[in-house]
C-alpha cells in the first residue's frame, strides 16, 4: 500500500512543523486595516502584535501600526478589562481614529475576557468623549486560522456597523476575501467600468500599499468608508468571494437581516471563476460586460492556446488559504496542469468539495486534498507525487529548492520576493499574468536544465 494512502488515515496530528497557516488575530487585523480611519487593536500581550506587525510589514513593506493592550502578568490573572480601556483611550489620544478594530488573542480568550461587555462599560464610562466606532471580533487562534480572523472581522464590521435599514440604492456590496492590494484595485476598476457603485469591504488597496509621503501619517488614507458600511443594508446585492466560507458571514448577515441578496461565488481566479463574477455583475446591475473585458477574456483564451503544450500534464502542488487554493485549482485545471496535492493549514472548511465543484467537468483527476497540513506533511507525500511545480506563498521556498522545482509565488505572505502586494491574481488579467508566470517558470526550468540552451522555445 502506498504511503500516500496511509496518510489519508492519518489520525490526530501531534505536532506542527513549518506551519501552512497563520494565527487568527493576524487575519482580523489585516481586515480592519482595510477600513477608513481604522486602527487594528489586539487585546492580549504585547508580543503577539509586535510579531504580527513584523510579519505583515515584511510582505507589504508598509508601516503597519497595530495597537495592543499589552497585558502583563497581573492583567493575565485579574482580567484585561482595565488595560483594554486604557489602551483604547491612548489610541484615541494619539491616532484619533474613526474606528478601532479589536481582536482578541489566545491569551484573552483563555482568561475569558468578555470584550463586548468591556466595550459596553467603556461606552458608558466615557460616553462624554467623542468615541470612535468600536468593533470587536473574537479571534482565538486555537480555534482557526488567519482566514477565520479575516472573515470574522468582516462579519463583525457588517453586523456591528450596519445596524439599520438604509435607503435602497443601486450599489453592490463586495466582500472580496483575502486578496492582494492589486486585486482590489482591479475589482474597483471593474466596478467603475460597470458604472456601479460598490462597497468593497475591506479595501486594503491604499491602506496597505500607500504612496511615498512627506510625513508619517498616523492612519493611511483609503479603506472602506464607514458610512458606506453603514449603508450596506440598502445595496441591491452582495457578492462574496469564497467557496469555503462559514455559514455565517457578512453577506449572509446582510441577507438575513435586511434581505440583501447574497451571491456567493469563488474568488475570481482563472477563466470560469472570473466569468462567474462578470455574470453576477451583469445580473445584479443589468449592465452588459464592457467590451474591454470581452477583449481581455479573448486574450486570455488566446494565451491559453499559445501556451498549452508547455504546461499540459505538469504536476503541481498547491497550498495556502482554502479559498485561494480552490481558485488556483480551478485555474490550473483549465490549463491542463494536474494538481496532485492541494493543501491548507485550515481544518473543516470543505476544501475537497470546493475543489471538486470548482474544477468539475474540466479537471481530469481530483488532487489529493489535505486540510490541516503543515509543510512537513506536504513534504512527506511530495516524493511520490513527483511534482513539477509548487504554487503558493513564499514559505514553500525551502521545499521547492530541495526538490529543484519552480515555486510560483502567489498570495500571502511573500517574504522572499519584492512586490507581493502588487501581484494580480483575479480577473482575466490576473489569470493571464498567472499563466505567463507559470509558462515562463516551466520554460526557464527547461532552459536551465538543458545543456543545449535553446534560444527559441
Amino acid at each position, binding site marked *: 500500500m502506498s504511503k500516500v494512502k496511509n496518510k489519508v488515515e492519518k489520525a490526530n496530528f501531534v505536532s*506542527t512543523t513549518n506551519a501552512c497557516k497563520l*494565527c487568527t488575530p493576524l487575519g482580523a487585523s489585516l481586515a480592519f486595516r482595510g477600513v477608513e480611519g481604522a486602527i487594528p487593536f489586539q487585546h492580549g500581550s504585547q508580543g*503577539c502584535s509586535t*510579531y504580527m506587525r513584523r510579519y505583515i510589514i515584511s510582505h507589504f513593506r508598509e508601516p503597519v501600526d497595530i495597537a495592543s493592550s499589552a497585558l502583563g502578568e497581573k492583567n493575565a490573572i485579574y482580567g484585561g478589562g482595565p488595560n483594554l480601556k486604557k489602551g483604547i483611550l*491612548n489610541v484615541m489620544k494619539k491616532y484619533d481614529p474613526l474606528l478601532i478594530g479589536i481582536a482578541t488573542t489566545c491569551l484573552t480568550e*483563555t482568561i475569558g475576557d468578555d470584550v463586548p461587555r468591556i466595550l459596553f462599560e467603556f461606552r458608558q464610562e466615557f460616553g462624554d468623549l467623542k468615541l470612535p466606532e468600536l468593533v470587536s471580533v473574537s479571534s482565538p487562534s486555537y480555534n482557526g486560522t488567519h482566514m477565520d480572523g479575516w472573515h470574522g472581522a468582516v462579519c463583525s464590521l457588517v453586523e456591528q456597523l450596519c445596524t439599520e435599514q438604509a435607503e435602497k440604492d443601486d450599489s453592490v456590496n463586495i466582500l472580496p476575501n483575502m486578496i492582494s492590494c492589486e486585486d482590489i484595485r482591479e475589482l474597483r476598476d471593474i466596478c467603475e467600468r460597470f458604472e456601479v457603485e460598490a462597497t468593497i469591504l475591506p479595501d486594503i488597496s491604499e491602506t496597505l500599499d500607500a504612496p511615498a*509621503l512627506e510625513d*508619517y501619517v498616523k492612519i493611511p488614507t483609503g479603506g472602506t468608508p464607514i458610512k458606506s458600511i453603514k449603508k450596506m443594508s440598502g445595496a441591491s446585492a452582495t457578492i462574496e468571494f469564497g467557496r469555503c466560507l462559514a455559514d455565517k458571514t457578512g453577506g449572509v448577515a446582510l441577507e438575513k437581516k435586511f434581505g440583501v441578496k447574497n451571491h456567493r461565488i469563488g474568488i475570481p481566479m482563472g477563466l470560469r471563476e472570473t466569468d462567474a463574477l462578470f455574470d453576477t455583475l451583469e445580473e445584479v446591475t443589468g449592465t452588459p460586460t464592457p467590451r474591454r473585458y470581452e477583449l481581455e477574456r479573448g486574450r486570455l483564451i488566446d494565451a491559453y492556446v499559445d501556451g498549452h503544450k508547455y504546461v499540459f500534464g505538469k504536476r503541481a502542488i498547491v497550498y495556502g488559504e482554502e479559498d485561494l487554493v480552490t481558485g488556483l485549482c480551478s485555474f490550473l485545471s483549465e490549463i491542463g496542469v494536474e494538481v496532485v496535492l492541494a493543501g491548507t493549514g485550515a481544518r473543516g472548511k470543505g476544501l475537497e468539495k470546493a475543489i471538486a465543484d470548482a474544477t468539475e467537468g474540466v479537471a481530469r483527476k481530483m488532487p489529493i486534498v489535505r486540510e490541516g497540513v503543515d509543510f512537513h506533511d506536504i513534504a512527506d507525500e511530495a516524493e511520490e507525487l513527483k511534482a513539477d511545480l509548487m504554487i503558493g506563498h513564499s514559505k514553500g521556498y525551502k521545499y521547492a529548492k530541495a526538490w529543484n522545482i519552480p515555486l510560483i509565488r502567489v498570495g500571502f505572505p511573500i517574504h522572499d520576493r519584492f512586490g507581493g502586494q502588487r501581484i494580480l491574481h483575479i480577473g482575466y488579467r490576473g489569470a493571464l499574468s498567472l499563466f505567463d508566470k507559470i509558462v515562463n517558470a516551466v520554460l526557464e526550468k527547461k532552459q536551465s536544465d538543458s545543456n543545449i540552451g535553446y534560444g527559441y522555445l
Partner: protein
Amino acid sequence: MTSAILEERKDQIHRTGQGDIDIACNRESLAGAVSQRACVFCGSRVVLYPIADALHLVHGPIGCAVYTWDIRGSLSSGPELHRMSFSTDLQEVDVIFGGEKKLEAALDELIDRHSPKAAFVYSTCIVGIIGDDLEAVCRKMTEKKGIPVLPVMSEGFKGSKREGYLAACKAMFKLVGTEDVSDVSPISVNILGDFNLAGEIWIVREYFRRMGVEVVANITGDGRVKDVGRSHGAALNLVQCSGATLDLAKMIKEKYGKPFIRVSYLGIEDMAESLYQVADFFKDIDPNIVQRTQDLVKDELSKLMPEIARYRKDLEGKKVAMYVGGSFKAFSLLKAFRHLGMKVVMVGSQTGTKEDYAELAQIADPGTILVDDANPLELSAFIKEKDVDVFVGGVKERPIAFKMGVGFCDHNHERKEALEGFEGMLNFAREIHSSVMSPVWSFVPRRSNRISKIIKEAGNE
C-alpha cells in the same frame, strides 16, 4: 493636532545637554501605544534559536512559532534544525483539558524524527494560563529519550524581552558542565551573545585563530549543544551586547570561577579594543599574543581605512537616527558613525537600562534625543524634527523611514549582511553609503518639495 508623545511617556525621552539625565526605563509597555517591543518568549527565542543541533519546540497555539520561523539570519556551518518551526499548535480541546499529553507526544514524535542533541521547549502565554507542568514533561522526556529536554519558561506576558534572556540563560546553564573539558587549551574563550548573523561569528573566530586563541563554544550563533556543555572549560567568556547572555556568563563565573569581559565587534575601535582585551588577558601565559594581535589589527586597518575614507567623503555631515534592541550596540554604532563623519542625532532602544542611557548621554553630541521603548509616531516625529538622512533599526522601523523618504539600514537580528569585525565595518560603510546616496531620495515628496522650494526661492530673488 495631537502630540506624538503621550504624557505617560514623557519621562522616557531625554535630550542631551538639557539637564541631568534620569530616563525612565525597564517599564511595561503602555497599553495602546503600539510599542516596537516583543515579549519574554521573543527574548528566549532570540537567544536560543541559533543552537543548530537542538530541537526548538514552541508549546502554544500556532502564531508564536510561525512568526519566529527562520526570521533571523543566524547561519550554521553544519546542522540546520534551528531553521525549522516546530509547534504543538494547541487547539481548543488542549486549552480546555491541558496540553501536557500533546506536548509529550510531540516531543516523542519530533525527537525520533530529527534526533536532536537536545530539545528546548518554550512556554508561551496561554501555557502559563492553562498551567501545563512543562518541567515535569521535560523531566520525563529527558529520561525517556536520553537527551536533555529543557523547559524554557518564557510566557510572553511575564515581562519583556529581558526576562526572556534570563529564561534562556537558565535553560542553557543546565547544559554547561555536562561535557569533558580535559583537552581545552588554557588560552581559550567562549563567544557569548553573538548570533552569527550572516556568518559574523566566523569573521570573529578567524581573528581569534590568528591570535592563537581557541574558541570553545559559540553561544549561540552557529551553536552546538555539546559545545555549550564544555563551555565551562574556557578560560574567559566574552559577552557581546548588553543583556542577552550576560546572565549565563555570571552563572558560569559563580559556579566555575571563569571570568568574563564585555566586548563588541562592531566598528573599528570596539573591535580592536575587544581583541586587545583578550590579548591582555592571556599575555602572562603567552607573551607573544600582544604582538600578534597588534599585527592583526594593523594589517586589517591598512586594508580597511582607505576604503572607509572613500565612503566618508560622501557621507560627511549626514545625520543618523538609530533604534536598537539593546543599547550596548548603540555605543559601538555611535563610534562607527563618527568614522564615517556622520552625526548621530537620535538613539533609542527597546530595553536600555538607566546606566546605559547615562553612558550614552556622555558620549553623544549635545542635543541628541535619547528614547526608551519608542513607537512609530514618536520615531517619525524625531526623524522629522532632526531631518535625518538615514535611520538604523529593524524590520518594523524600515517602512516608517521609507514612507517618509529616509534611508534605512537594517541592524537588527534579522540582518542578512555581516556587519561585525573589520570586514563588517566595510560592509556597514557600504550599506550606509548605498542607503544615503541613492538618487531615489531626490524624488520622495519630502526632498523634492524642498528642492522645488529652493528653486522657487532662487527664482524669486
